[in-house]
Each structure stands twice: as structure tokens, then as C-alpha cells.
């Protein structure tokens, strides 16, 4: 087999790819440890965690992440279920709609949301609470392609019709079917969608920045503008969080994270 011979080209490209991947990570980590002159220390990380604004903004983003996940599940699971069960004709339309965020960049979305909802009759940006509703809606839209895709793939893997009919013949109502039959069967799919949604929301900059909410993204930009070592530490922490989320997905779903990211 000539295939198994050592091929220098193969290894050249693999080396370049691996280096491109690792060097910036290592460089950032190395940089984040050099806050104390002449020695290695975790001082930059200590400074980050000692900053009350970091904890506040992280708490805000994490809360919004959880709320977004809950709203997304409530919106997409019943819809996808209904489409698979009763309206398969509608599936291409719904799929196309959920892919729209690939065509409409976040900066355009937030522009549209502000132009539409900051004026009368809505005036949603006038109080913090209504702004949070607006930003949650934006986050749900943003993570829609991931959440829909995850749930759709999960739904396709189970026999929705048979499960529903079996549950119905045992006397279950719609809510009962969704909660005790469909949801448990979609655990992996929903977990994947939720984790990627959470990671997207926590690291998101654009919506939070333009709707002026105290989220992690805008906080990081402020730190990045004024400090040298803390941003590197924040970068590593942020890498870590995103990758824990994506790593769990790869573990539970055996690696189909073929999703195009949104919101850079």
C-alpha cells in the first residue's frame, strides 16, 4: 500500500495547521503569566477575579445565557415537534428562516432592533427590564441556527409519530407527551443546542454593546483598551469556557460541531 508510506507533504500541512492552532493559544497563556516582571505568576488572573465588575458582568451574561437557553427550548422544541408530526411540508420554510442569521449579520440585526423598538410605540430601550427582553430576543435569534439544527437532527433520529401515538393511546395530553416522552428522547440534542447557545451568549459583544447592557463582551473590550496582561488572562478564561461547552457537545454527540459561528 503506497497510502501508508510517510508523506512529507501530509506532515507539512498537518504541522502548519497544528501550529496555527496552538501558537496563539500558547502565546496568550504565556503572556498572561508575565504580569510580575521576571517571573511566572497568576497575578493577571487574580486581578481579573478581584475586579467586582468582572464578576458582575459575568453574572449578567451567564444569567442571560440561561434565560436565552430556556426561551429557545420553549420556542424551538414544540415548533420542531409539531412540524415533524403534522406539518412536514413546512420544514424547508422553517429551516430557511432559521438560517437567516447567516445572511443578516449581528450588526445589522442590532441596528434593525434599535431602529424598530427604541421608538414609539415600543420604546423598549427606555428601561433596563424591557431592554433585557429585547436583548434576549436578539440572543434567541442569534443562536437559532444552532438550536434549531440540534433539535431538528435529534427529532429526526426518533420516531416522533409512533411515540406520540403510543403516548396518546395511553391517554397522555400534548403537554404530557412533550415533557415526558419527547424531551427525554431529545436530551443529547437539547444539551448540545443549549451549550452552544450559552457559549454564544456569554461571549457575545455586539448586542450587549449597542443595547448598553453590562455584559461580559463590552467589559472585555474596556479592559482590552486599558490594560496589558488582564486581557490575555480574560482571553484564556473565555477560551476555556467556550471550549468546555463545545467539548461536552463533542463528548455527548460524538463530534458533530459542524456549525458556523455567528456573532463575531
Amino acid at each position, binding site marked *: 500500500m503506497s497510502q501508508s508510506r510517510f508523506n512529507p507533504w501530509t506532515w507539512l500541512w498537518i504541522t502548519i495547521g497544528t501550529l496555527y492552532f496552538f501558537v496563539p493559544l500558547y502565546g496568550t497563556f504565556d503572556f498572561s503569566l508575565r504580569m510580575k516582571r521576571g517571573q511566572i505568576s497568576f497575578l493577571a488572573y487574580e486581578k481579573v477575579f478581584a475586579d467586582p465588575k468582572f464578576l458582575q458582568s459575568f453574572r449578567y451574561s451567564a444569567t442571560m445565557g440561561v434565560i436565552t437557553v430556556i426561551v429557545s427550548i420553549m420556542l424551538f422544541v414544540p415548533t420542531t415537534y409539531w412540524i415533524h408530526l403534522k406539518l412536514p411540508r413546512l420544514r424547508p420554510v422553517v429551516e430557511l428562516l432559521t438560517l437567516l442569521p*447567516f445572511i443578516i449579520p449581528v450588526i445589522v440585526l442590532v441596528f434593525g432592533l*434599535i*431602529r424598530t423598538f427604541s421608538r414609539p410605540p415600543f420604546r423598549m430601550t427606555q428601561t433596563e427590564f424591557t431592554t433585557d427582553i429585547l436583548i434576549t430576543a436578539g440572543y434567541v*435569534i442569534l443562536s437559532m441556527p444552532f438550536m434549531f439544527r440540534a433539535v431538528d437532527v435529534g427529532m429526526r433520529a426518533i420516531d416522533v409519530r409512533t411515540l406520540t401515538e403510543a403516548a396518546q393511546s395511553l391517554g397522555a395530553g400534548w403537554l404530557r407527551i412533550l415533557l415526558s416522552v419527547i424531551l427525554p428522547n431529545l436530551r443529547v440534542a437539547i444539551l448540545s443546542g443549549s451549550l452552544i447557545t450559552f457559549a454564544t451568549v456569554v461571549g457575545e459583544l455586539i448586542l450587549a454593546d449597542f443595547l448598553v447592557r453590562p455584559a461580559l463582551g463590552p467589559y472585555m473590550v474596556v479592559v482590552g483598551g486599558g490594560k496589558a496582561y488582564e*486581557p490575555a488572562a480574560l*482571553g484564556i478564561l473565555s477560551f476555556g469556557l*467556550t471550549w468546555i461547552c463545545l467539548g461536552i457537545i463533542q463528548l455527548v454527540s460524538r463530534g458533530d460541531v459542524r456549525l458556523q459561528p455567528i456573532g*463575531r
Partner: protein
Amino acid sequence: MSEIAGSRFTGAQPRAAVALASMWTYLGVLPFFAFIIAFLIFPATNLFAGAFQDAKGHFTLVNIQELFSPYILKAYRTSLEVSLITSVSGGVLGFFVAYAITMGAAPRWVRNMLLTFSGLAANFGGVPLAFAFIATMGRTGFVTAILKSICYTAADASKVCPLDPYEAGFNLYGTVGLAVTYTYFQFPLMVLVITPAIEGLKREWREAAENLGATPWQYWRHIGFPVLLPSILGAMLLLFGSAFGAYATAQALTGGSILLVTIVIGQQIRGDVLGNTNLGYALALGMVVVMAVCIAFYTLLERRSSRWLKR
């Protein structure tokens, strides 16, 4: 008789019942459609309508015309440049990495490792990515320091550091720096998109070509490359769109000093920097048109490539 009566009964009543039932059926997807319309379609069309209005709300094409003013054309040119460079750099690097892990003799664990990394890195962007490249390739960055330290003493006793990137004109906060940074998520995206296509190349084609006496180069020139071309172009269009719509990384990296279309839109949201609010809407419309064209061609090419490559 009873059968006929029965069939008449079931034939007549369902019409109303079916209509009612199907109304109920459609009601099930109402929350989803209401949500999408309220928070995506309506705001977007509202924005695009603004592109065709003047300050008083009358119909006009002036905003579209003003898109071709030098300042805005420059923003579009910078955005196109960065997107083109990174879709080619990311596309080429990604293609060869994908080729190496599928067709090359790479062991299985290397292949799995690179695919996992690609899944992670393609999903990485925004502010942390900018921080990572500032810490790596910035003026005091890790790689910059290494490259700077490679020096020799020239004949006239002066120190020469031929690899110092900033002496060579590199600037992380300009177009090239942004392209280097974007490539970090572009090439893994290419690996993810193109790997299934390369896997779709049939072994028989290669064997048939070899049996007919074709060299590897001839096989690629006449079979492999033409079959893969639509997939490669499609994937590169995807990369192009992904770079064209990016904002956060560029903003965090350059502080908004690089004039991309997205950055100009951002400035416009913060205040009327263009001197005409509706021009901002036209800018957003232009952006969506470019993205839509990319995705449309991507879909076309995908369809064409599936003629040969069954997924």
C-alpha cells in the same frame, strides 16, 4: 345502503372539520413565526425601508446612490479585501489540512485531533480572539519577541534582526494583521466544510485513472480537482461571508480604526457619523445583499457538487 350513507356522511362533514383541524394545526407553529417576524423579519425590513427614504420619510434613491461615495466605497473595498484574502488563505490552508488528514497517511488520532480542533477553533472569534492575537503577534507579543530575538551582527558591527515583523512593515492593527487573525477561524471552518467533500472522492476513480496510466498529477488535474472545484468554491464563499459580516474581532483588535463596512455601521448606530441616518440603513442593506449573494451561490455550488459527491 348504510355504506353509502356512511360514506356520504364522512365525505360531507370532514370538509369543515378538516379546515378547522388544519387551522388548529397551523396554530401550533404560530409562536415561532410570530417571534421570527417580530424580532428578525420586521426589524430587517424596517431597516431596508429606511434605505429608500429621506429624513422626512419620502421615497428616494439618494441613499443607494450615496453608497458609491468615496468614503463608503473605501469601507466596502477594505471589507472585500479582508474577506477575499482570508477566504483564500483560510481556504487554501484548510483544503490542504483537510486533504492531509483524509487522503494523506496521517494516523487516525492526528485526524481526530485536527477535526476536533477545527470544530473548536471555527467556533472561536470575537473579543477573546483579538486578545489572543495581540498577546501573540502584537508589538510585545510572544511570537514577535521570538522573531525579534533572531539577530546576527552585520559586517559594520550593527545588529540586524531580519525576522522582526514590525521592522518588515507588519502591523497587527491593519488589513494584513486582521487577515492573519481571521484566518484563525477561517481555515478550521474550511477543514470542516471541505472534509466531507474530499471523503466523497471515490477510490475507484483514482484506481481507474492509475490503471489507464495516469500520474497523480494527471489524476488531480483531470478528475479530482474538477470534481471538487464546486465544493471548494462554495466553501470559500462561505468563508467570505463569514469574514464580511464580522465585527467584534475587528472592533476589539483595532479599536475601530480599520474602516470595514461593519465598523462604519457600528459608528453610525452610536451617532450620525455619516451625516445622513438613512445612509446607514442603505449600508446595512448593501451588506445583506452581499451576504445573500454569497449564500445563494454557495447553495447553487453545493447542489452542483452533490451530482458527483454523495454525502
